[in-house]
């Protein structure tokens, strides 16, 4: 249990997760109020990572439920283990014979079997899936429902039920309630807007791209041994890239990947060639790369004081020529 927001920040930092006060406040409240947290934000800013480090920092077991289209109760909550049931019936065949011995009528035999059928529909034959595991766990647990926006609306409704009471009912067994409420983190990439009902039950945390200073600190913590100057260059370039209107804006994970790549190349300073050669680490679309090349050329030339090469005027000229002498 945390005592203060500041303490949350420190213990997350000890786990290698650098965050600002906002994130720490929400984590603190989630623990104090026992409320689920809905974490939203662009891909790669550390939403899933946050849940993991909170689990580690609080000594909770992490139970992860990855959502996808078509995820249903059987995959998320529990399933009957048919084969095991069948196996047991085979093994216990003789016992059955014993139990049924002396039954004169069919009705009586059925009665006796009926008395024992709770054996086969008991917790022994349930395969617990993540949700049930999180609820029945003895130790403190953190349930991570990852990419909840990918699940179907029906599943969301079902999840809502679980999150509001932390208990589930298995018709044959009865209601199973949580011994200790697990801490719940839901992450979403905003592929689909979650319902108001779900949002109302959750604390909301929006993690955005970090500012320059924060990103530099993250880089320091995550990529040890990186040259200070290189780190600053990398962060500056990334910040600049995020201002562009790209199809896929590079995130913190890309910053880290890129830095590691540069480190592996023994670079200690960014220059234009290096950037051109490694740009595909951070940008995933051809169009984005093309757009970024122009911008970054300028940025790096500025830094080294080289003159900016003029952009080729070919395209504009061609369009203008095409427009000439045609009907409107």
């Amino acid at each position, binding site marked *: 249990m945390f005592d203060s*927001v500041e303490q949350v920040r420190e213990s997350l930092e000890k786990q290698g997760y650098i965050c600002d*006060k*906002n994130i720490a*406040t*929400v984590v*603190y*409240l989630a623990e*104090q*109020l026992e*409320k689920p947290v*809905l974490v*939203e*934000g662009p891909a790669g800013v550390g939403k899933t990572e946050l849940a993991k480090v909170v689990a580690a920092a609080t000594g909770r077991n992490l139970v992860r439920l990855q959502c996808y289209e078509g995820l249903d109760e059987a995959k998320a909550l529990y399933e009957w283990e*048919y*084969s095991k*049931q*069948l196996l047991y019936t085979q093994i216990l065949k003789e016992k059955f014979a014993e139990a049924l011995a002396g039954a004169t009528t069919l009705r009586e035999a059925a009665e006796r079997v009926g008395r024992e059928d709770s054996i086969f529909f008991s917790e022994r034959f349930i395969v617990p899936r993540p949700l049930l595991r999180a609820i029945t766990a003895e130790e403190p647990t953190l349930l991570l429902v990852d990419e909840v926006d990918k699940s179907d609306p029906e599943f969301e409704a079902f999840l809502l039920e679980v999150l509001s009471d932390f208990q589930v009912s298995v018709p044959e067994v009865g209601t199973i309630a949580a011994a200790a409420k697990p801490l719940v983190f839901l992450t979403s990439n*905003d592929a*689909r*807007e979650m319902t*108001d009902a779900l*949002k*109302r039950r*959750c*604390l*909301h*945390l*929006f993690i955005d791209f970090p500012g320059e200073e924060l990103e530099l600190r993250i880089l320091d913590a995550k990529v040890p041994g990186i040259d200070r100057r290189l780190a600053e260059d990398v962060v500056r370039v990334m910040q600049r890239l995020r201002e562009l*209107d*790209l*199809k896929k804006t590079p995130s913190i994970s890309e910053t880290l990947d890129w830095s590691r790549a540069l480190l592996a190349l023994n670079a200690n300073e960014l220059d234009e060639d290096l950037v051109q050669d490694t740009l595909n680490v951070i940008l995933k*679309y*051809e*169009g*984005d790369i093309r*757009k970024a090349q122009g911008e970054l050329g300028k940025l790096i030339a500025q830094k080294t004081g080289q003159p900016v090469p003029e952009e080729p005027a070919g395209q504009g000229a061609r*369009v203008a020529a*095409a*427009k000439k002498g*045609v*009907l*409107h």
Partner: protein
Amino acid sequence: MRRALPTGRAGRAVQKKIVEFTNLLRKSGIRVSVAEAIDSFTALDELSVEDREIFQDVLRTTMVKRSEDIPTFDELFHLFWSGFHDQLRDTLQNALSGMGGGAIDLDQLIERLRELLGQMEGSDLDLSELAAALLTADLTQLENLIRQAAEQAGTARIENMLQVGFFSRRTLEQMDAEGAGAQLEELMRRLVGQGLSEEEAAALQELIRALQEALRQAVRQFTERELQKQNHDYIEKFRRETLLEKSFYNLTEEDIRRMRDVVARLAQKIKNILTIRRKREKRGKFDLHQTLRRNMGRGGVPFELIFKQRRKDRPKLVILCDVSSSVANVSRFMLQFVYSLQEAFTKIRSFVFVAELGEVTDVFSEYDIHEAVDRALDGGDAINVYTRSNFGFAFHHFWQNYLSAIDNRTTVLVLGDARNNYNDPRAWCLRDMQSKAKNVVWLNPESPGAWGFGDSVMDRYVPYCDVAEECRNLRQLSKFVDRLVL
């Protein structure tokens, strides 16, 4: 389950303000439920309210659940919470620093005043709360008094700039500023009798005047803030309204950005609508083959029954967009829409035409929205856009080359004005497309009244459209998308 309102550290006064604040949020279009407001109270019990940053985070995390609303929230938070106290302090400080005295140290003077006031305890002169607060420059008390008076004066009902003076005056009357002034004058006279030096008295006189002026200013500022609060939602609504109605001629960069979000959401919505599975028929027929296969491990005892899954209806979309100069401005917007659709759907093919018809699917998947739209307007390297539009020719071209792109799961979306320059409409092409497709939807920027007049051949095409609509601005498009739900 109902919980009593927590009344811990946050305290009633803060709770009342929070409720007021939630009202402001709601007015500005952020949905905050009562449960969420209560959450914020509970949360504040756990945390110190003193740290403004944390306070803001607590309110945001409990009340604002959509990331798009965060900027609005931050703005309103500043307007509502942080502003006035700081402003009041500045005003007072300005007033005091503006005093010419110089010879006398203000702090000392105020210190001495406090002393003298202490001595006068029990005399017949009663200072009103306001006078005392002014004299000791007690900011918190002053703020409270102003708030109370403003509430009594009904400042919350302020509607426009012209009323600022009126409500300020009423607020001052409510708090009896004049009475307080008189009391202060009286106090000064007595203090002079008690041994206040000539010099000190002059300074005090000036101080009192400055304080009164500062109070008037502060009340006015408070009233102006109230007006801002009232107006905020109005401004926001106004901006949205115009964006909805705006024809696509001169959009600012900000408009385009906002428009892009709205359009993307519309596209997503269309996708959701088209992918809704028919729940009634969720399970198909019994699948003997799969059942046997799956239960082989149990000696063929059918423990688990498998049903044929209905194949999920993956919608396909074929879009034909007119980019001729007669609809140039509409096309730009429509192409934005098409672009967003293409981001949302996997099975989509986009075509642009004037007379010739060309596919721009690749252009859209490769470039960012602005560039892609520009390129598509230029015909995507595939067609000559500087000709007269000819729908018949374009449809025929499609019929000849791309008819295989349409199957019974395809929705064909045509965007254009159907002004055919008196060419042959060749409506039979559209008829063939319709017979192959799931449905044909036509969005026309002209109103139905104009269909079929002049060189418009819309009337010839309408029989072969499942839906034909007027669509000239965002509002109409939203309506159209909404109606698709039914």
